């Protein structure tokens, strides 16, 4: 799965995401969205990528000790990889349940951490893989196909 776009050099974007930086949170996904608009991708695809990238970015801000967001843009699909240093997810199935959240109260008071992040990504993604484990950090691999 997730083979590279053939005969096409994909465009790669890389962003560093800081833990707890709510001021800049969303900047990376916003830039990815703008690039997709400049490349002329269809609106519904831009929407799905923007939402998935934003949720992944917010997960790093809220739940990790910092990490990075990568976007690889090709004619067939857009891939997002969110990699963090963090405590990892002990029970991935539980984390995927709508409404389940480990976000601290302080973060919830700010309107984040409602437990919809991973399910939202799942809804936007064509393929979605979580690699994580307690103490290992988390890697989210999201593939969104241009034509569904």
């Amino acid at each position, binding site marked *: 799965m997730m083979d590279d776009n053939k005969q096409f050099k994909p465009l790669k974007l890389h962003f560093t995401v800081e833990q707890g930086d709510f001021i800049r949170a969303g900047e990376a996904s*916003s830039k990815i*969205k703008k690039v997709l608009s400049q*490349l002329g991708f269809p609106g519904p695809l*831009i*929407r799905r990528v923007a939402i998935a990238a*934003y949720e992944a970015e917010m997960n790093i801000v809220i739940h990790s000790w910092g990490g990075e967001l990568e976007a690889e843009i090709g004619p067939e699909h857009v891939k997002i990889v969110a990699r963090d240093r963090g405590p990892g997810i002990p029970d991935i199935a539980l984390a995927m349940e709508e409404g389940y959240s480990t976000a601290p109260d302080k973060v919830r008071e700010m309107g984040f951490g409602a437990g919809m992040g991973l399910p939202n990504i799942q809804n936007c993604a064509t393929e979605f893989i979580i690699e994580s484990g307690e103490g290992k950090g988390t890697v989210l691999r999201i593939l969104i196909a241009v034509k569904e």
Partner: protein
Amino acid sequence: MAAYFHSVTLEKDKCMGCTNCIKRCPTEAIRVREGKAKIIDERCIDCGECIRVCHNHAKRALTDPLEIIKAYPYPVALPAPTLYSQFSHKFKVDQIIQGLLNLGFFRVWEVARGAEIATQVLVKYLENHALPKPVISAACPAVLRLIQVRYPELLEHVIPIESPMEISARLAKKELEEEGYPVEQVGVFFISPCAAKVTSVKNPLGVKKSQVDGVIAISDIYGPLLAQLASTASGSIQPRASGAGIGWAVIGGESRLLPFNQTLSVDGIANVVRVLDDIAMGKLKEVDFIEGLACMGGCVGGPLTIENSYLSKTRIQNLSKKYGMSYPEVAPEFACSEFFWTEKIEPCSVLVLDEDLALAMQKLETLDEIHKALPGLDCGSCGAPTCRALAEDIVRGLAVEIDCIFKLREKVTDLAERMVELSSKLPPSIGKPR
């Protein structure tokens, strides 16, 4: 009709080539070239922000003169509710309506009443159609065009219902036709606080052809109407609109009439951009309805108004109280598809660098490289609003690197250094041994 019609235009003689307007344009639609501002047609959304910020009054809205009404035997005035806020509280709404009749209008059809009908049609529509949340109001034509240009992916959130102006125009013509007047001799004229309404008449979105025959700026009718008001008595006319419809002139006026738990009212085009950015990222899901108006305070802050917008807001609020919030139900035949958009609004992606994806990617990479090499001060001296916008213009072939004065200076310094170096070179006949 040309591919693009814009109400906002430039009076070249007055333009000093300052960079105030390029900085404030929400769609980066203005450049300064050869000492004059230039509006890029396909990007302009006619929000009127440049009219507001231009100290030299070089930007103006193309509207129709009051004399245009003479072209029709039966001219009808459609006053925007904002008009009522332009005059002292001692002048009542019925006096303003009478004043318009005295100016030569055959009838006055209040757009505030159209707003009440729009509210009811909108509620009806949402009962039968599920739109993605948050639902976005289509009331402000500048915001509608902003969505079309910058957020085409959000078009499906917009309620596809005609504006109060269009509804009023349609009903005004219908009424006169039913009374036996030949409809082709009826001219309907909107009295407007904003430039975007002119564009929405000449180049409409959602409908094939506007029902409005001309748009007269509030600022143009203000003087003649004020002169009429002094000699116009109150009491001869009963206004049709309630305080609910009049309230549409200020931000929040539309939202408060709708049966939603969570509404968000945002005014000022820069603030609207921020909110639309959030929706595009999937935020604001708990919000049911968003009312975005391009002008601060709502239509009372329109660039074609005369009065201080804060005072206007207070006056509208007072009028809303005075005329109450209850208004007549529309006849059942109106609360149907008659006022829905008939045309799909197509995305207008002005950001796309090239139709060919591979070329667009190459251009994007070049754009990034150029942008990194620019000073990043966003000073505007090159005539583009930001260094990023200049880099984009260069990639599109519309500008060159040395348009940046810092880049030009670097080149001049290089050249000067090379000249000094060359001047120290002596011919072998008189030079030192090499």
